[in-house]
């Protein structure tokens, strides 16, 4: 049974998750996952039809780190800043951690200061405490905005 302090700690984890992306501190963002941590972005359209095809899939923290390294060293993408809004935290106790859900909206702003709603959807995560720190064992981003505007480079 989650207690108020659990909500608080889990909310802090999500806040940190969003801040590290929004501040482009992606190398630190990687460290929010356990070594086996899985990161997946999938459209609601596919989930609803029972299809497993993701938009992005990292099966462990090394693959998440590779994504970030690729963004830094190899990929060309739209120059932008991200801004996350996260709300409606939902917490369920698991034997060894927490399953949490939350809604998100992600806005992107270009260099000329034009902002647009880039993606809206829901997080469906599993969180565990490791060495005194709450980390994602699994983070699944279920995007309502399955029609990806322009391209998908930085994490949601």
């Amino acid at each position: 049974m989650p207690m108020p302090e659990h909500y608080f700690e889990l909310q802090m984890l999500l806040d940190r998750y969003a801040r590290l992306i929004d501040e482009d501190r992606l190398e630190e963002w990687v460290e929010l996952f356990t070594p086996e941590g899985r990161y997946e972005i999938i459209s609601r359209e596919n989930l609803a039809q029972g299809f497993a095809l993701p938009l992005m899939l990292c099966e462990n923290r090394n693959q998440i780190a590779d994504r970030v390294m690729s963004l830094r060293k190899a990929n060309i993408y739209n120059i932008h800043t991200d801004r996350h809004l996260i709300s409606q935290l939902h917490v369920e106790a698991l034997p060894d951690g927490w399953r949490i859900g939350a809604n998100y909206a992600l806005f992107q702003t270009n260099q000329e200061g034009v902002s647009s709603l880039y993606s809206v959807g829901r997080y469906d995560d599993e969180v565990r405490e490791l060495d005194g720190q709450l980390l994602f064992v699994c983070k699944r981003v279920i995007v309502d905005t399955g029609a990806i505007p322009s391209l998908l480079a930085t994490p949601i």
Partner: protein
Amino acid sequence: MNPQDYQWPKADCTRIPYGMYRDPDVYRLEQEKIFQGPVWNYLALEAEIPNIGDFRTIEVGDIPVIVNRARDGKVHAFVNRCAHRGATVQRLIHGNAKAHVCCYHHWGYNLEGNLVGVPFARGIEGRGGLPEDFDKSAHCLRKMRVESFNGVLFGTFAETLEPLEEFLDTTFVNQLKRLFNRPIKILGYQRQRIHGNWKLYTDNLRDPNHGGLLHMFQVTFGIARLNQTGGAKVDKKARHNMSWAAQDMGKNHSDAEYSTPRENNNLTLKDGSLLLYRKEFPDDYNLTIASIFPNCIFQQIGNTLAVRQIRTKSVDEFEIFWTFYGYQDDDRSMDQHRLRMSNLVGPGGLVSMEDGEAIEIVHRAIAADEDKHAFVEFGGRGPVGDQDNLVTEAPMRGFWMHYCELMGITPGDAAHANA
């Protein structure tokens, strides 16, 4: 303005007026001359609609289309717009239906697109209703002619057009036989909205030269080595293009294989499993991108197999609709492998995300100069044939020469040659 009024200084389309990508009049004419013209448009895969009544709603150019399997077991395609007042008849993007009934006034159509039901056609108690001479058979949904090749569905609005296999020509018939050599299963869909003209994407697909320059993941992490063999094949009219590369990606785990001659790019992935190619065809091609004029692409990038359908939204926007598939006899491990490798492609693809950006920066930058021209001479000038290397964009010109033919443009003609 009229596309013929732009200046086309070169008969071989080595110059393309930017207005072709920006002018709403050009876009309107394309809808008629290209998408409703003498072409076979990709519609869907039979595996998506295996049962009687299964349907998907798609688009051919701007035209909404229902593709479904009728009681005769055959696939029929017809315009998803009520013959009464123009409402969308089937509002779902997929499902199973006994008939398609418009929600507005309940006109009902069978799975062949014929009008079968009109409520209150005779009015109520002799009052109201339609005139006596109303004839249901004159109000069916506009039908497309459909052909299936190895489970791939194509349709056309054209009255007269060469048979599908002739339209595709040998290279592309063989490619479809290769990719659809046994029953497939759908893995899912991806959608990408690009804020640019759709032909900037068909150009991109016929320009293998950008691969190793724009898409740096391949070079940085050793997917595309500079010594790889590759090229492009075209059909008899050079309107379709298949870019191909052959190499063994499965051997790229030693440092020597990962590294490239490029400066500072001696990087290794912490987990290279998404690069492991499992050979699954009798030949050595591990990359084939077959672009069929006008609206579709059959891709094999490693073990990711997908069809991309280009759906035009306006002169300034299009959607890429990706249908990923594997084979029915794939085991669980192969399913997972294909999903893992899908990271390489699509809107978030490690080797493909740049295309969205490249198209948008062109589309934005050319807005003010519709009368200026793109310069297209990589791979040389003159007629377009097969290309024996990747440093070419000549297949782009093949697309444009056929495009001009359908649009009634004579490039290089004195009337619009003085650019």
